[in-house]
């Protein structure tokens, strides 16, 4: 089980702020995860339509789409940040 958390328009399009899911063994990298999530429904498909703009954090630390998920407890998906 891994906890997924969503922010800003990713959260809005997916329609929830977080969820816990089981990942199949075939999902090894963040890129795999994004592909996998797109299959879960239209909200996901719209939210993740342009995967290049999706930022990802594993256990609250920025990571790359090529990074392995490993034994991540929490994975966050969000758009480019606009703080400051």
């Amino acid at each position, binding site marked *: 089980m891994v906890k997924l958390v969503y*922010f*800003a328009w990713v959260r809005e399009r997916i329609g929830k702020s977080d969820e816990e899911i089981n990942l199949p063994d075939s999902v090894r990298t963040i890129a795999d995860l994004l592909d996998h999530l797109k299959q879960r429904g239209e909200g996901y498909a719209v939210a993740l339509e342009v995967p290049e703009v999706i930022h990802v954090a594993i256990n609250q630390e*920025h990571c790359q789409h090529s990074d392995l998920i490993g034994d991540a407890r929490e994975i*966050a998906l*969000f758009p*480019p*940040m*606009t*703080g*400051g």
Partner: protein
Amino acid sequence: MTLPIKTRVQADDFDLQTEIDALASANCDIGAVVTFTGLCRDDNGTLAALELEHYPGMAELEMQRIAGEALVRWPLDGVTLIHRFGKIVPGENIVLVVTASKHRNAAFEAASFLMDFLKSKAPFWKREIRRDGKVGSWVDARDVDQAALQRWR
């Protein structure tokens, strides 16, 4: 000695003089303090407020990481980072960076570095709330902010 880093994520406003006094009273050796304050601005006269969403936990962690990186790069005597969340109306403070150093250029450069990284790395997102009551759009990230990071490689 504890590292002179203070980071806070809060809904409340902050007061610059209070933050500087806190830094200076902890260390009588500080000669130069630079601050950057980011304010909510209303470019078109249509903005009622900005609503700032953040990633609790990671926001604090990321601000600590960014401040730590600045301490490695410049001889600083103190760094304070404060970022607000929630509803913020035009003219109000959003973000504060404070750097203290014996050397004024170190304080200037570190503050500029910290802002560039806060803008593009700290997990905050702005959405507009319009004067007509409608929820406006999410603020787009600007290429110029992303490009600003390249300066510090």
